[in-house]
């Protein structure tokens, strides 16, 4: 992916560039808001990583300027704030995702992947499919190789998100945010609990597990 990082803190931007390069992405840097906006307008990037606080032009203004100009490049906002009001403000301005600094590199990579290959917003699917797995959103039914899998509502929601992620890694934080609407870190094993139940039910009577745990990173659903 071709990624533009607009970030004024050199340590952070170096860390970002190295991390992105290590994972096969091509990263370009901009150290202030104005330069960043200019580059974002001209370059053909897959994703923009924009810091919230920047010299000359802050992150929110960049997002607004791009969206007003009809530029729909996926944008991920970074912030050092506690993220209560900022998240809402950022998403309202037109950013697609939001990440509080500091973050683990795998978390950023997972989110960038999710942003870059986001399905068009207006695609309405009523049945999601992956390999032998079939999830019917209308009937609220799940079948693996034609066999009905009885899931609790929480497990159904979790599986739906995993299927929509299309084989990409999803992190714990992403699951908490999108499946349960938790914008904070719970102190108990919410994700693990529901994931292990879902896994047990999906894999019952099958040799191969469909849910792969990537230690320290997240989960992935494979056919």
């Amino acid at each position: 992916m071709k990624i533009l990082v607009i970030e004024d803190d050199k340590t952070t931007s170096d860390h970002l560039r190295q991390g992105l390069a290590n994972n096969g992405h091509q990263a370009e840097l901009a150290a202030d808001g104005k330069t960043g906006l200019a580059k974002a307008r001209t370059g053909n990037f897959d994703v923009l990583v924009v810091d919230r606080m920047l010299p000359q032009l802050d992150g929110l203004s960049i997002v607004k300027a791009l969206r007003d100009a009809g530029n729909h490049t996926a944008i991920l906002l970074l912030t050092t704030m506690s993220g209560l009001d900022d998240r809402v403000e950022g998403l309202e301005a037109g950013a697609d995702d939001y990440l509080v600094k500091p973050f683990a590199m795998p978390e950023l990579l997972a989110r960038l992947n999710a942003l870059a290959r986001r399905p068009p917003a207006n695609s309405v699917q009523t049945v999601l499919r992956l390999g032998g797995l079939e999830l019917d959103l209308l009937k609220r039914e799940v079948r693996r190789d034609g066999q009905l899998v009885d899931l609790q509502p929480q497990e159904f929601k979790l599986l739906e998100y995993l299927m929509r992620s299309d084989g990409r890694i999803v992190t714990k934080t992403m699951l908490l945010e999108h499946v349960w609407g938790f914008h904070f870190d719970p102190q108990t094993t919410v994700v693990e609990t529901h994931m292990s139940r879902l896994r047990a039910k999906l894999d019952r009577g099958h040799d191969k597990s469909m849910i792969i745990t990537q230690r320290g990173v997240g989960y992935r659903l494979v056919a």
Partner: protein
Amino acid sequence: MLLSRRLFNTISFRLAALCALLFAVILAVLLFFNFSATNHALEDQLRTRVHEDFNTLAEEVDSESSDELVKEFDERVKNAPSPGSYFLVADRQGNKLAGNLSAIAPVVGWQKLPGTVAGKPDHERAHEIWGEGKLLSNGLFIFVGQDAFRVNVAENTLIMSYLWSGVLAGLAALLAGIVLSRGFLHRIDAINQTSIAIMQGNLKKRIPTRGTSDEVDRLSGNLNRLFDNNQALLDSLRQVTVNIAHDLRTPLSRLRNKLEDARQQPRIPAKLGEQLDGAIAESDQLLATFSALLRIAQIESGSRKKAFAPVSLSELAERVFAIYQAVAEDEGRKLLADIKPGISCLGDGELLLQLCVNLVENAIRHTPKGAEITLRVSAPAKLEVADDGPGIPPDQREKVLERFYRLDQSRTTPGSGLGLALVSAIATLHDTRVELADNSPGLIARVRFQPT
């Protein structure tokens, strides 16, 4: 009822009552002097008339024999007894010889006779007779008296008028006391309500002043300045906390990033890799603590209040229950729900979710295996999480709501010690507070919201 009890308990009312009492005593003394002076004057008047009667008699009395005197008296009584004048002639033994009075003990000098001696049975009312007795040289006793009815009536009228004016003055004093203390109470109430609002976290509230610069106004002004100082101190303390957390986050983040970069290096020995993972986890824990501190500070700043909207407490609790029933089960606890549908309150949905989650997680983490936890929502807008675990000793219930406070028994449980502080901050933002009570056995955490 409560208001009237409060009214009687106010200082100003007690002062008013004391003044009324003092006033009553002074009035009583004044009226007593007035009464006795009037009384004396009336009695003197009557005495003068008795003397006049005596004097007209006196010319004849000494020169005449007893028979003549008796005849003279009889005549006086029969012919022209001036109304209200009474006469009596008696012999040495006290037997009545003449006059319009029945026999009385021959007492010399001024005396007041009860009404029964007037010897007038057809008289409507027995009148007192006041008069003077004299022993003559010839051994006869004469008594000349006057009807004291008018004096008695005047006395009674005076006493009645004094009584009535006393009662009216007392009532007036009482009424004045009530009105004054009501007015005073109103202003004291304003001070109290402002103090309570400030204690509940509404730090911007101030006592209204009238600009009259009286005592209450000056007190209110001084208290307002005290509140200003208090707020400034709190603000700067909060700012310092936020600044420290904020300033330390950046270097910590860099540290964390460097550790992560190192971890990404190829051919790292397994042992070193483990140590690096441990170091990253430690720095993540530290950063999480700072995040929680910043989040509390942001909640306390009250900026979220402007986005308050109706939130369905019932649906929120059902959601938390659906998520945590399995979590509790995996942890060996049983989570039960007792959620009344259709209950909502005004608030911030995201923060209320966190409040509910934190309370449930707190119960899961601080109870032994096998514990039962109940998540309850009831009217009007009450959220409760009750468990049958070890509970919290009463003297520590307030302290566990403070930042970083941890019970001895839970020092070994992982956690930042900020969970309940966050819950408390969220409750304060919603103009309420977290009540921790005995569930005998166990703990019950309760938050009463403003219903919509």
